[in-house]
């Protein structure tokens, strides 16, 4: 027997977090489809309908982002994204070599530290750079002409090229991110444990350290789960 580790179940993703994640996933998927149709890559809804749906999905995503920013600050979850170099190299090595040797995950997932150092960096980049750039370029795209006082006003952009290029480039980067992201889901304890965690909130982990509590009992109440987290 090679695997002597105990399997433990840990509560990682709370209700709102899962709702946010899946809503965002759906909206981004939908924005990509309608967006690339607007780009002229293919025809599905028809241009007019695609623009309409893209704009509505964009507003839905913006509202979701606003709620989520609020959630991050009220719950203190924003700290999850504080970057750290600790174990960063180890995490990279895990993906490059360790995973093939069935080496253990170098970082341990808990409710208070659910992101590995690599994820911290990537998601921080998404949140403070990528999403703001996409949202801002999208809003400018939407409002570079706008009606005001019985006339059509302009934001004073020389032309749309730059904004459109940024927004398109961002869309490609987002697609590439999603591709890698979806693949990395399979690198958890089992192929589906990460996916199940984002659906149920509970993730199966391998407990390499037997001195740690074998299971962290937590329920949906944030206060008690935080306490549970603190004990680890």
């Amino acid at each position, binding site marked *: 027997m090679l695997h002597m580790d105990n399997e433990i179940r840990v509560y990682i993703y709370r209700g709102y977090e899962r709702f946010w994640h899946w809503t965002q996933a759906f909206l981004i998927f939908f924005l990509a489809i309608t967006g690339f149709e607007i780009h002229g890559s293919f025809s599905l809804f028809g241009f007019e309908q695609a623009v309409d749906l893209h704009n509505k999905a964009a*507003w839905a995503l913006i509202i979701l982002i606003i709620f989520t920013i609020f959630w991050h600050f009220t719950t203190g979850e924003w700290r999850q994204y504080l970057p750290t170099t600790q174990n960063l190299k180890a995490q990279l090595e895990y993906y490059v070599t360790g995973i093939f040797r069935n080496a253990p995950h170098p970082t341990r997932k808990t409710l208070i530290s659910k992101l590995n150092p690599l994820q911290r960096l990537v998601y921080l980049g998404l949140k403070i750079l990528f999403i703001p750039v996409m949202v801002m370029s999208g809003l400018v795209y939407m409002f570079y002409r706008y009606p005001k006082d019985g006339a*059509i006003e302009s934001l004073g952009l020389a032309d749309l090229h730059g904004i459109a290029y940024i927004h*398109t480039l961002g869309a490609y980067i987002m*697609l*590439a991110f999603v591709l890698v992201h979806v693949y990395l889901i399979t690198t958890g304890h089992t192929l589906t444990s990460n996916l199940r965690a984002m659906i149920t909130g509970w993730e199966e982990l391998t407990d390499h350290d037997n001195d740690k509590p074998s299971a962290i009992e937590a329920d949906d109440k*944030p206060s008690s789960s935080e306490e549970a987290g603190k004990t680890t």
Partner: protein
Amino acid sequence: MKNILAFFLSVIVPLVIITLVLRDAGKENTLLAELREEYSRPHVPSVDHSKHEVLQRDFDNPHEITAACLSCHTERGSEVLGNAHWNWERAAYIEGRGVTYLGKKNLINNFCTGIASNEGTCNRCHIGYGWRDGSFDFSNQYNIDCLICHDNSGMYDKARGGAGYPVPGLDFRTIVQRVGRPQKDNCGYCHFHGGGGNNVKHGDLEMALLTASREVDVHMGVDGGRLECVDCHTATNHQMLGRYYGVSSDNTQRLHCEQCHTSFPHTNRKLNEHTIKVACQTCHIPHYAKVNATKMYWDWSTATRRDEGLPYQVLDTLGNELYTSIKGDFHWAQNAVPEYYWFNGTADHHLLTDIIDLDDLPVKINTLFGGYHDPGARIYPMKVHRGKQPYDTHYMTIIQPKLWDAEVNKGALWVDLDWEAALRTGMEYLNLTYSGGHDFIETEMFLPLNHMVSPSGQALACSDCHVRSGGRLASLDDVYIPGQSRSAAIDYFGVLLLITALGGVVTHATARYITFARRKVRTI
């Protein structure tokens, strides 16, 4: 579970509400209904001219009719003397030329080329009597032909080759008692027949508009608005709104759709935003020459051919001239798709004295200014008339030939079929030099389309322009049109990025599978 429910409620409910609020409410376009109501009221004349004593007589001389008109309308004569319909030229400031006095009087085109030396026939369409040559008195208001615009009897007619005088034998007593506001056939008498035949020149102005359905022209259609020309082309003191840029240069006295329809004509916000860069005509005139064909190409170089010594003509099955010995070869188009260009309402013209730039062919007979970065410019649909016309191979200038004369051996091409004589006589008439060497050069002329507006359901759809290839605006490369425009570099980079990501994932997954399989074997 309760918390999840609370979260869903607190997020989804506002999301749904906000999306509903942001949705464009299905507002009804009440403006159109108001316009329909306003323009369906019949025009009621304030005067019955048959009751005027001064008109209860026979007239032998058309100048006497003008005098009779002016005896009541005392100031109208001097108004008309200042009018472009009368002078066939206007003062305009043209960038690079300064103040110019240009118009049909002295400009060339690539249809019948120009009026100089041909006034006897061309000026049948002048609102005057007797402009046969340079001696015409533009300051004499008794030379004005009031009837060509104001005859409501339908009986008035000007003579061919009559320099604007009416055909002999008209019943003026009846005609003068039935004058009034200009009707479509008054304007159409000249404007439908520019270039020498019905719909030859404009493509969107032709006799079919007198009887057409609203599918052809939603404004003038007999089952549409039934509008008269002057309902839109309103006039103050005989100064009419509306410009034809074959002869105009200024962005003044123009007639815009917005004057009735406002700049917020749509209930859809996105469509209204288009009006800042796209003229109404672009979407709402998807085709022109919807009934009869219009001339698209006129090759003068093949004129003067004879068949067994005689001039001849070739017609197509619809009766359109494909070749005539006096004019050359023609191409026609029916239900034509416009070309699209930026236009800011100002234009320049190629003058008879301008030197042809062989590096910039075809010669632009008129240049319409504008571009995406010009805030005053919008995209307009245009008929572009192309052709070949004579030029001086030594002086590199366009030549004005003499085309028409009442007699033979006066140098008129249409009479004698002799190019050299026609070119020499035409240029002599203008006191311009002709080297004696001529050839034919490609020219083009831009005619913005304003009529034959289709019902809204037949307007262009988004995907007519917002499409990767083959869009209506495919030739405009200075504007970013979503769906059509793209950066090839970004698309290549993006696809490369996706391929790299996919490749990385597949490689990584394969390696995982192989190492996993090996471990499994070892474990067994």
